[in-house]
């Protein structure tokens, strides 16, 4: 059974690119337009991996991670940040709230695929 990945980004083109890259490798993709939408969709079903942007309307990525980590179903689900933010301070915050990793945009599709495979197989 194909593993499911939730991609959360307010940029439709980034969501399309992530879907394009990961669908070709056989993953099922759920798209969310911001942190709140991502949280709503994560509540409806448990996913195998969350890929989230940081700067989004309504709810940012760090808040989303913090909220998800408070849910028993998402204690151990890998969550990767995929953002243009690259400062060490932001990465430290991400690690503190429970992010599994940090990918700085623009992403290389092949490298993204390698990381996803490494994290969820």
């Amino acid at each position, binding site marked *: 059974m194909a593993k499911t990945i939730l991609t959360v*980004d307010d*940029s*439709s*083109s*980034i969501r*399309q*690119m992530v879907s*394009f*890259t990961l669908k*070709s490798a056989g993953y099922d993709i759920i798209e969310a337009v911001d942190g709140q939408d991502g949280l709503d969709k994560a509540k409806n079903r448990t996913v195998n991996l969350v890929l989230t942007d*940081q*700067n989004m309307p309504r709810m940012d990525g760090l808040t989303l991670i913090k909220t998800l980590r408070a849910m028993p179903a998402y204690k151990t689900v890998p969550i990767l940040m995929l953002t*243009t*933010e*690259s*400062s060490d301070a932001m*990465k430290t915050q*991400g*690690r503190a709230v429970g*992010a*599994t*990793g*940090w*990918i*700085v*945009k*623009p*992403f*290389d*599709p*092949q*490298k993204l695929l390698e*990381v996803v495979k*490494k*994290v969820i197989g």
Partner: protein
Amino acid sequence: MNKAQRQKHNMKLLAFMAVVALVSIMLHGFLGGGISATIETLLHVGMIAAIYVFLLRSSQREDRSHEVELRNAKPQSAVESVLAETHNRFATHFAGANGDLDQVQALLTDAIGKLLQSFNGMQQLIQSQHDIALSIVTGHQDQENSTHHAESMEEFINSTSDTLKEMVGSIVNNSKIAMELVDRMDAVKTQVSEILDVLAEIDGIAKQTNLLSLNAAIEAARAGESGRGFAVVADEVRKLSSRSEQFSRQIRTSVAGVNTAINDAESSVSKMASLDMQFALDSKTKIDLTLKQVKELNEGMRDVIQQQHAISNQVDEVVGKAVTSLQFQDMVGQLIQHSHTRIDCIEQAWQRIGRWANEEQQGQVISPERIVQMQQEINGLFQAADNLSARSPVRQDKLESGDIDLF
């Protein structure tokens, strides 16, 4: 009141006073006033003239004072006036700039989405083309099976070649055996010839025996009655000799038949051996050539498939680079949003300055406390813009793929 307005006002006042004086003179004259009344009237006119002069000078003083006032206040009033008149137009252009940025972002999003769909379609078409090529060559539509099939094809060619070699070897062996058979038949022919020689000896012996029996019969006849028994023996010997000769002829005939048969067999076997050998060698040459062509064709197709596979991989790589590059839209979008917010800060500051200019122009007195509050509001807005500048969400200035950290 400006200078022109004041002069007009003074002229109206002077005209009113002149009318009052003329009416007074006319009343005194017509109503029978004397010289003293005339003098009184003239005094009235003088007073009016004095009042006019006073008013005129007073007006001139006011004008001079107003000019000084204007000289002092003019620069501030002009700025205020420009601000009051233009702040709405500035607001319109700020809104227009924001609208343009929104439009740029919308166009970029639309274009990138379509480009991405095109790349996706292109990649799928190349994959389909690759699969079709595989299916034409192998009947399978996946790389693993096609490779296995190509190997099977090579195995088939090698196996067929080996079988043919064995078959040709077997035919060659048969031919060799046939040739040995021919040699052995030659040996049989020699032996048959020897038999014939022996038969010739037997014929000779039979002839001599016949001659001897004839001589014995003659001698028995000469001996008369006493040789009668000997004559019987001689006759029997002659009969035996005749039978020996007859047998010898029969054997010779049979041996000649055998010899002919052996010759025919030798010829057939020799011909067959020769034909088998030639056929086998010709067939082997032809089949080797065919198999070589099939092998070359197979290798050629495998090379084509491998090249196509390599091209497919290269397309994947190029599309990957395109996908990385197309993410500029996300970064540009964030920068546009950032600029949008900064323009909003500047617009708000400009709006407030314009509003205050309007208030001042309308004659409202701005207290020192109010000025401090205004400065604080403006500083607050610019501080917000400064803070935004300090934490731009995009720091990259090149489209190289970013770092990846796994915690």
